[in-house]
């Protein structure tokens, strides 16, 4: 009887300890980055370009590049992803072809990001002749975020009660009319959540843009789709491994990490807020 109690206590402390450990590590990492990064933070850091071999100045071109490439990503993947989600929830018959689509989506979400990068090099940079550019990188990241957008949109569409559709169809609406006027509006916040999470993923990815458009150093933000661009994650990679005087640029590296983490967390918290508001609204609707 006592052995039983000892085992049970040991086991439960394993659960609690692993949770505490994970949370503690996360908090320590973030506090470390925040404290070190804060030292260089300021208006100039956010709005100036890198100066003196990146040892001084700011990271504005990288911020602008990341913002543009992430927006471009969502411009590509959102219509395609929402279209696919509508097809899967509202139209697709339950047959072998549909199962293939679902299998493909699940597998795409497990494809390593560097493999997307290779695919982007062959298809967009070489075959379609887009070169290493903002456009190529945005398209590559668009494909990478596609499965995530589809999954999020599908969940949002599924959460709309069946009765909505039945009501619209009973009133004589065609299928597309029912989707457009009755099903899509309540699903929009959920789709928006997916889009924001897609933005956040695109902002943090490095491997897919490595060979499709990101540049080591550019003094300005890109002005056209065929320009190369700087990006926050790539800038952090350069500053922490490729620079000739790593110690000198370390404060700027911390600052870049802080901006990147801050950006990604803000996007994620926004997505959480949208989602929980939507849940509450759907619950009161029922």
């Amino acid at each position, binding site marked *: 009887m006592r052995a039983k109690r000892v085992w049970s206590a040991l086991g439960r402390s394993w659960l609690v300890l692993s949770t505490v450990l994970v949370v503690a590590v996360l908090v320590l990492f973030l506090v470390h980055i925040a404290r070190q990064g804060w030292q260089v933070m300021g208006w100039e850091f956010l709005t100036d370009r890198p100066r003196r071999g990146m040892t001084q100045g700011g990271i504005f071109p990288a911020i602008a590049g990341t913002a543009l490439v992430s927006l471009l990503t969502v411009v590509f993947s959102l219509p395609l992803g929402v279209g*696919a989600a509508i097809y899967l929830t509202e139209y697709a018959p339950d047959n072998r072809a549909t199962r*293939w689509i679902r*299998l*493909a989506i699940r*597998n795409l979400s*497990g494809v390593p990001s560097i493999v997307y990068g290779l695919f982007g090099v062959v298809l967009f940079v070489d075959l379609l002749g887009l070169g290493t550019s903002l456009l190529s990188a945005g398209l590559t990241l668009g494909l990478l975020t*596609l499965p995530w957008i589809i999954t999020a949109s599908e969940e949002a569409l599924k959460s709309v009660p069946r009765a909505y559709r039945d009501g619209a169809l009973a009133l004589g609406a065609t299928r597309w009319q029912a989707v457009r006027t009755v099903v899509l509006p309540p699903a929009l916040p959920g789709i928006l959540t997916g889009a924001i999470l897609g933005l956040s993923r695109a902002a943090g990815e490095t491997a897919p843009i490595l060979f499709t458009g990101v540049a080591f150093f550019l003094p300005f933000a890109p002005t056209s789709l065929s320009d190369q661009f700087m990006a926050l*994650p790539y800038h952090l*990679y350069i500053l*922490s491994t490729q620079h000739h005087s790593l110690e000198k640029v370390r404060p700027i590296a911390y600052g870049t990490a802080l901006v990147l983490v801050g950006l990604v967390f803000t996007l994620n918290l926004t997505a959480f807020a949208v989602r929980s508001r939507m849940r509450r609204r759907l619950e009161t609707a029922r």
Partner: protein
Amino acid sequence: MRDSIPVTRRRFRAGERLMEGVLALCGYTSVLVLAGIFVLLLWQGARAFREVPLWEFLTTARWDPTSPEGARYGIGSMVASTFLVTLGAMAFTVPLGIGVAAYLSEFAPARVREVLKPAVEMLAAIPSVVVGFIGIVVVGPAIARLFGLPNGLTALNGAVLLTVMALPTAVSLSEDALRAVPRDHRLASLALGANPWETLVKVTLPAAAPGILAAMMLAMGRAIGETMTVLMATGNAPAFPSGFLSPVRTMTATIAIELGEVPHGTAHYFALFAVGFALFVISFVVNWVADWFIRRGRRAR
């Protein structure tokens, strides 16, 4: 039904058909992309084997495409490195992941759970370069101090950091699997006199096992394909790994380092695509196995 629509509404039906076609096309895009990745990578990778013997690529360990006494294209060392780092990461991820998932789903008070579940998802949002950076400035130096090494950028460093990358997947999917176990199972076990811990180990965990296995496979897939973290934090020595305290260079890191530097259209360039294709196949198999476990778990219920 369809034949009875009046003539005046034909135009309407054409629009309806068009829309359905457009949406179906969006749906099939995923299949196209997956097939496209397979075909393009295979096509580019295969071109390497005009110069490089396939047998040498698959069975030898030395990767040295720029060697002055003849280029070597053995994939062995980097595959071993990838698996060493991944298995190290799983050795941390499995116990920690199951621990956190079980705590969240079985023991945590509702309020704690409401805070921790989003926190785990936030962990997933941290970009891999930031994790790699942490490996350079915090974890690596700590490992160097702990084991008395001149440099902490080792396979162990990569394993620790990949744990951070793999944990969110492992925790969140394992927790889903645990919560999918019907409440009646637990109540029956408790009614028979088992305490909550025994109920977890003898009833809930076995019932959720296929789902947890799938979660771990998917987490492993993430670790295998992770690029920036290992590229920054494992030292990138292109030799056969000699243990967790040696620097390693994985498949992903090799592609990331070399593709930017080789001229397009050379054997070396195509060989990197062959490595990418191998990586794609490995991750495909891992996902497929996870899928199999998920389907098995569903059938059991």
